[in-house]
């Protein structure tokens, strides 16, 4: 696949090459996708049989792009007597305005051909290279090309049509075009998702109901979204760019679940994860709370609607459990995959309660907290009733769906992410440490809600007692004495899975860490083994499975670091939190403000720039949210009753930072900060906040 161009609207998106063409193979994520299904896999423009050559691509908006092309594929000389513009917008399919300009003194007659075809692949098939079971059909109906696929009652259709006269056959639209000297010719091309998972009987493309053109939902106005968010001013331009990039990408990643039309939650990432994920939607909503709290509101409502209510081994569902992932494609439809939805995550359920409480602390929206009371109670009950698989009072996971379920149900979900210091892998069920932190926090926050909103002091007391007990046991059972940190997990027999990992930072965030142990944990996080200069590694250097480009065993995740920074602040390590922010925000500059999912754990001095982990998912929601949470931690924003506390600790490279009109239960408030935390800045190829020397480990 050559350089790809992506535009999207909700979970509908187009990925093409730089000339706007789509020539997808089964394993290639190019095409028009909606609801996890490819609705167009072939889209090739030719003029007199020739492909076109890209001159430039303008990304006008996240949902709109413009391709400037010329005929011929000569690499040395291009005869630009003709130029071609394809302007494409996505929304219920896509709309393309095709314009041909004749720059010559003579008229031209051209054969313009647009080839179209579709494999209707499920995204899972694209990822795993699987074969289709149904039948394809194509027809020409009323001047439009109908591309269809049928598998029993499962039917999906794409309709292709044009506004100008053309000959339609089962593989293309062909135009006989005459253009006078210095004139232009133009047609609109409509690619409509005519039959999909939601409107199977309407028989009409969605966008034709309201407008002539495909376009994104107008409720999703980007301008309004940006206006509603706090405005940021700063003497460091890079941070302004990163902030704007984050807001725009977050806007693009908004996804409206079919149950809640007109409401938006963050989908996890483009292109593989444009759907609702329990964990990703919750973490991103938490990061974005000070900036756009409606994401949290919709996340809470939608996850509540789908909260587990029964036992279903195929979907790893239990009563009270919050879903892991929802999918809409053919394999889910035929129950070859369990994502309708799939519940195999153990952190989403306690984090649901954490988000509900944090949402109330920021917004004061007690109404939603009351409306979701039974959901929150069911989530809290799940922790004790269904998650204690080791029988020792800790949350643990072990899938019941052995075939298509997830083996690792925590955020570090790759096969080798949870290991002993010497590299051995533990058995199942596994109780990873951060889960216990989340459970503790859920109980503490659940107690607050029970006392202040649900008016159930007895329940609050019970939760507080359980939380205190959990904290006491946890600090005994997970603490690795000879290393002075928390084990990444414990096994059913009580063995401490003693690798040193970034999960320790999440423990600070949750509040489960004993005050007496916090300093040692913070020291580890900032040690040379963990802190690369860009951020904290998922697994410390020197551990058996450490690999600087191992997915969860050495890379640096901006999302992870944003929560680590929050955790450090929670325990009063302001300067350490500022250093984490400095490293990640410096890294953001190398990616034009769009942080990748992860980058290599190489030492900063060694590579001079952050080495992106080779992943196809970008933008990714919780990486997009990381700079937002880092802004919060740098400024020390904390709701306190109806007030917003501001307690800045900024890296010295930022002279001045202003975040204005922060929305919340206080109305709107401004926050100001000046950089005072020395991060040992030194001259570099470009302005950076500075290289941070890790603290020397005391051994």
């Amino acid at each position, binding site marked *: 696949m050559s350089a790809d161009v992506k535009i999207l609207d909700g979970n509908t998106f187009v990925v093409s090459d730089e000339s706007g063409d789509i020539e997808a193979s089964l394993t290639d994520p190019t095409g028009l996708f909606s609801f996890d299904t490819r609705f167009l896999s072939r889209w090739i423009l030719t003029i007199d049989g020739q492909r076109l050559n890209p001159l430039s691509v303008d990304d006008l908006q996240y949902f709109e792009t413009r391709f400037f092309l010329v005929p011929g594929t000569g690499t040395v000389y291009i005869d630009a007597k003709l130029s071609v513009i394809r302007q494409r917008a996505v929304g219920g399919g896509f709309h393309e305005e095709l314009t041909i300009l004749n720059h010559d003194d003579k008229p031209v007659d051209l054969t313009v051909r647009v080839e179209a075809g579709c494999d209707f692949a499920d995204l899972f098939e694209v990822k795993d290279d699987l074969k289709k079971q149904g039948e394809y059909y194509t027809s020409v109906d009323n001047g439009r090309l109908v591309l269809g696929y049928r598998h*029993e*009652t*499962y*039917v999906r259709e794409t309709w292709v049509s044009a506004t100008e006269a053309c000959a339609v056959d089962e593989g293309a639209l062909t135009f006989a075009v005459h253009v006078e000297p210095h004139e232009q010719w133009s047609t609109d091309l409509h690619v409509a998702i005519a039959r999909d*998972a939601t409107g*199977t*009987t309407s028989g009409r493309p969605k966008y034709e109901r309201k407008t002539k053109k495909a376009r994104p939902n107008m409720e999703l106005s980007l301008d309004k979204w940006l206006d509603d968010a706090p405005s940021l001013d700063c003497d460091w331009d890079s941070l302004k760019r990163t902030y704007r990039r984050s807001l725009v990408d977050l806007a693009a990643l908004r996804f409206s679940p*079919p*149950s*809640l*039309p007109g409401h938006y939650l963050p989908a996890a990432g483009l292109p593989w994860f444009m759907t609702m994920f329990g964990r990703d939607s919750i973490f991103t909503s938490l990061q974005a709370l000070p900036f756009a709290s409606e994401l949290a509101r919709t996340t809470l409502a939608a996850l509540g*609607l*789908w*909260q587990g*209510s*029964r*036992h*279903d*081994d*195929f*979907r790893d*569902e*239990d*009563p009270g459990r919050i879903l892991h992932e929802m999918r*809409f*494609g*053919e394999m*889910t*439809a*035929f*129950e070859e995959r369990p994502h*309708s*939805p799939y519940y195999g995550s153990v952190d989403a359920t306690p984090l649901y309660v954490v988000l509900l409480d944090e949402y109330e602390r920021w917004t004061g929206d007690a109404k939603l907290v009351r*409306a*979701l*009371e*039974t*959901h929150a109670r069911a989530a809290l*009950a799940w922790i*004790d*009733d*269904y*998650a*204690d*698989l080791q*029988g*020792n*009072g800790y949350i643990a996971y072990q899938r*019941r769906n052995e075939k298509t379920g997830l083996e690792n149900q925590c955020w570090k979900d790759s096969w080798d992410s949870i290991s002993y210091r010497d590299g051995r892998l533990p058995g199942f069920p596994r109780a990873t440490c951060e889960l216990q932190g989340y459970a503790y926090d859920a109980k503490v926050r659940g107690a607050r809600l029970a006392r202040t909103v649900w008016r159930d002091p007895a329940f609050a007391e*019970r939760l507080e*007692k*359980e939380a205190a*007990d*959990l904290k006491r046991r946890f600090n005994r059972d997970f603490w690795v004495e000879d290393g002075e940190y928390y084990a990444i997990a414990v096994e059913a027999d009580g063995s401490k899975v003693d690798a040193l990992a970034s999960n320790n930072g999440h423990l600070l965030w949750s509040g489960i860490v004993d005050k007496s142990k916090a300093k040692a944990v913070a020291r580890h996080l900032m040690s040379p083994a963990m802190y690369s200069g860009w951020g904290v590694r998922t697994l410390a250097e020197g551990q058996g499975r450490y690999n600087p480009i191992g997915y969860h065993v050495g890379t640096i995740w901006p999302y992870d670091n944003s929560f680590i920074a929050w955790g450090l602040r929670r325990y009063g390590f302001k300067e350490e939190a500022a250093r984490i922010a400095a490293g990640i925000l410096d890294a953001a500059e190398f990616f034009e403000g769009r942080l990748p999912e992860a980058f290599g754990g190489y030492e900063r001095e060694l590579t001079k720039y952050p080495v992106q982990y080779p992943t196809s998912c970008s933008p990714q929601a919780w990486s997009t949210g990381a700079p937002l949470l880092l802004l919060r931690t740098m400024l020390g924003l904390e709701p306190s009753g109806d007030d917003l506390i501001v307690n800045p600790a900024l890296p010295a490279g930022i002279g001045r930072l202003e975040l204005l009109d922060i929305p919340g239960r206080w109305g709107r408030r401004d926050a100001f900060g000046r950089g005072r935390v020395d991060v040992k800045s030194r001259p570099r190829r470009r302005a950076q906040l500075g290289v941070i020397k890790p603290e020397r480990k005391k051994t």
Partner: protein
Amino acid sequence: MAKLDKGLLEALAERSRERPITAFNGVVRFDVRDGERVEEWYLTIAKGVVSVSRKGGEPDSVLAGDVATFEAVLSGRANAMAALLRGALDAQGRIVLLTALQRLFPGSPGAEGSPTAGYARRQS
């Protein structure tokens, strides 16, 4: 002629009395197809509790499908969302109401779940 087993709907109503679907009110109609014939069932939801009858007013949402699909979904042998994606069920109207209602559909027969009896509660 195949008819929908009314007992399956009554069991659903019973589950809603034990565990109401929070804060929802409205009328859902099930259009149960058997060949050309369509049997209509009205599920009236009041404060999350469902009552079932053959007659009712204007529905807020309609779920349509054949007898076999409804029976499979209402007995836990099939998943409603998957059936919907497959086109075996068709949903119209207020989808949010149907989403809330699906939580009352039973789990898969024989599913073990993982009740662990609640450590914290055992301790207290």
